[in-house]
């Protein structure tokens, strides 16, 4: 066995939203779109602050952040839930996307930094006179957007190609992805790497000419993130319902048999792995302008492994489950860190244990169990 995954015994191996047979799922999706794309903007920008229906900026920021995490969880579900490959390095792709966007945001600060130099403050501090070569063109938004997709995508492609070609799988793959993000974290912690070292990028002023702190800009970012989340949800659904998705699930459940049936798992795995990394990168790029900071801490192994627990809590192999999981865990986190900060790690630790022991199908599994 050692596929590294306890096969989830769904009716056809594909759960119900993804199977697409049910109307309620579509209705839920429509309601979610309505809430995120219409209700939130109206209640935040139009309804006056005193009103009971007003949604404060705090919730907009938190909501935007959680949706970025949900996109990451969705990406994790594609690779782990459907293909059975547990990545402990997804935080790296997320952070790389964030850094690519961060470079653009740093450039658009212009000379308004503490030292009033065209260079970012940390470069002035290091006594650098010019931007290093890899910062070229990052003052153009389209180029930064390209980097957001290309850097995580290329890294994932090259790493994945060699790893999958050598048929590294299961725990081995998990551990070397963890080593990868750990190594990257060490690299980005260095000041000489040219990405701000410990502190990373922060103090952004504007994006595409709009003030980054203005409520309208924040709401725009929120709406874009929501649209991206819904879009990726639909994309994921399209993929797992296709023949390609069936092969992925087959790889998860019995890779040898897939091989013996004449498929080369390499390219299937590589496709979904690279796609998953790119989705993470985009989530990171959406995250940075909303949260206002990116630093190497995002690449720590702990962050990446937390992504796995979002997917596990929500229910792997369900697409919608990890989205719910990311929301539940992160709402819990922000509640705990405000009211009982010292107990958050206990709660998170227990969550890891209880979910793996008693709730292997996650929250989505509970609901499904009742329905059938």
């Amino acid at each position, binding site marked *: 066995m050692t596929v590294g995954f306890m096969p989830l015994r769904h009716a056809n191996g594909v759960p119900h939203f993804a199977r697409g047979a049910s109307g309620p799922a579509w209705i839920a999706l429509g309601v979610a779109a309505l809430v995120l794309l219409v209700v939130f903007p109206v209640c935040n920008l139009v309804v006056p602050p005193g009103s009971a229906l007003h949604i404060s900026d705090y919730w907009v920021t938190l909501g935007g952040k959680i949706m970025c995490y949900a996109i990451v969880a969705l990406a994790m579900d594609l690779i782990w839930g459907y293909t059975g490959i547990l990545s402990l390095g997804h935080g790296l792709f997320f952070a790389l996307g964030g850094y690519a966007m961060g470079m653009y945001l740093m450039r658009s600060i212009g000379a308004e930094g503490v030292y009033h130099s065209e260079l970012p403050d940390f470069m002035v501090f290091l006594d650098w006179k010019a931007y290093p070569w890899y910062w070229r063109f990052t003052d153009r938004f389209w180029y930064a957007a390209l980097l957001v997709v290309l850097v995580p995508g290329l890294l994932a492609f090259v790493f994945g190609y060699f790893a999958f070609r050598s048929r590294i799988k299961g725990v081995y793959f998990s551990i070397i992805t963890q080593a990868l993000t750990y190594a990257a974290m060490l690299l980005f912690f260095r000041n000489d790497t040219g990405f701000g070292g410990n502190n990373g990028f922060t103090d952004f002023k504007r994006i595409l000419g709009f003030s980054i702190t203005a409520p309208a800009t924040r709401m725009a970012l929120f709406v874009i993130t929501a649209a991206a989340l819904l879009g990726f949800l639909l994309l994921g659904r399209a993929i797992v319902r296709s023949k390609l998705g069936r092969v992925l699930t087959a790889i998860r459940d019995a890779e040898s048999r897939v091989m013996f049936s004449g498929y080369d798992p390499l390219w299937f795995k590589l496709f979904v792995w690279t796609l998953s990394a790119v989705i993470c990168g985009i989530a990171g790029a959406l995250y940075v302008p909303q949260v206002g900071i990116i630093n190497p801490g995002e690449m720590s192994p702990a962050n990446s492994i937390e992504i796995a627990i979002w997917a596990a809590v929500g229910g792997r192999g369900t697409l919608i489950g990890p989205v719910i999981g990311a929301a539940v865990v992160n709402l819990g986190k922000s509640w705990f860190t405000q009211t009982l900060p010292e107990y958050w790690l206990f709660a998170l630790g*227990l969550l890891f*244990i209880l979910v793996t*022991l008693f709730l292997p199908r996650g929250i989505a599994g509970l609901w499904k169990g009742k329905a059938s």
Partner: protein
Amino acid sequence: MDTLKSRIAAALRRVAVAALACWATQAGAGVAPATIRDLAFGDSDARGQAIAAIVASGDAAALPLLQAVLDGDVKTAGDDRVLQVKGDEAVDLLTGKTVKPLPDNLDDLVVNNRMRRELGTAIAALKLTSTDRATRLAAARELQNGAEEDALPAISAALGKEADPEIKGMLALTQASIQLASRDKATRLAAVKALGNSDSGATKTLLLGVLERKNGQYVEPDAEIRSEAELSLRAVDSRLSKGELFARVFSGISLGTILLLAALGLAITYGLMGVINMAHGELIMVGAYATYVVQNLFRAYAPGAFDAYLLCAIPAAFAVSAIVGMVLERTVIRWLYGRPLETLLATWGLSLILIQAVRTIFGAQNVQVENPSWMSGGVEIMTNVVLPWSRIAIIAFSGIVLTLMWLLLTRTRLGLFVRAVTQNRAMASSLGVPTARVDMLAFGLGSGVAGLAGCALSQIGNVGPDLGQSYIVDSFMVVVLGGVGQLAGTVYAALGLGVVNKFLEAWQGAVLAKIAVLVFIIVFIQKRPQGMFALKGRTVEA
């Protein structure tokens, strides 16, 4: 009562005065009157010669006299008397008689800068004959700061008798630097040659000084000496680089044994049992905190036996970590056998809980674990290579742990059972091996070894709640690189990684070295997914 006290006090005072007088008469002892006269009445050259003569005699009895001159206690009266003044009386240094009251025509013996320097050197040179190591060391240090050629015989004599390597090294260096400044070519040549036998970095500076050019002119005019200096320099350089190489290999092995200790437990739980224990680092941390607690108990209840606290801390660290490990195995991990990814997540959760628990109990700050006194200091192999005792102790300790573990796995019934369950659980079970019990014990063993690692780490690094986190990636790398299920592989991988890491560190800095090693492992695993020492056989995968 009072009278008795005052009588005793008076008696003591009399004894003290007598002793002082005695010491004062002794001050001039061993020094010829002619020399004393030169010292007191001569011009500065004559004085210098007098001091040189005293130093050349090598007689420590002259020390008080020189000190007295330096302190300004020696005065002249008229042009024939040299007096050492003590309070309201004085001793005539030429006759040894006490003079009281003090004569009116006392003149200060003027000690100018040159003489002050000469006196300092002379005192230091004479102190080299002291039996007290600290005095000799201080004297040697004093001489190193600039000694005159006059001190040379005294230094050479002291060098011949000196047994302490540190003092000896300093003296030899001083001697050579004095000789290098000599006007005599043969002396300089001999000095340059002698320096070639040294292994200290300071020698190199000296030799480079010989080869230096100023305004296009060599400082050293003689070509023969220069070429000899180059030879010596090369010899010193090669010895120095050998020393550095040795030091680097040692620190590599030291890092390697630390990695080995951290990874050995993992080699059992992951390598043999196949359990991905992400809480392994936290078991190391628990061991370190157990050591901390034992240390505190010793400090509070048996401060006299503090140096022996490790003897108790080692079994305590093993036991605490082993118990924590067995509890984890019974409550969580055993439900997840055969589901490695779920085990990974659950044990990660366990690690978070352990970290937070330690934070709640001991606080988030690092705690202080003190080395027993015998662990401080080190062995000096060469002047530029010092091996700390703590590192040596850890190397020895990991050797012992490794041996014990190997014996346990290959020579005991438990070891046999562990190997049987590893190879074929169902078959072992049907032959009557209590597999559940074996699982628990094996996991406890692996965890206990992690505790031992924590005990060792507490001796050389910070102990804090995050201690384990920094070792978990490294220890997995070691096990994965070495090959699963292989103790030998783990050993080679740990030592190899340690040494490679240290060499890269010297070349490119610590962070890049670490990154390079991680990248190397990632690439290596692509080539040999089963590790360096894969079990041979046709195991069916998936």
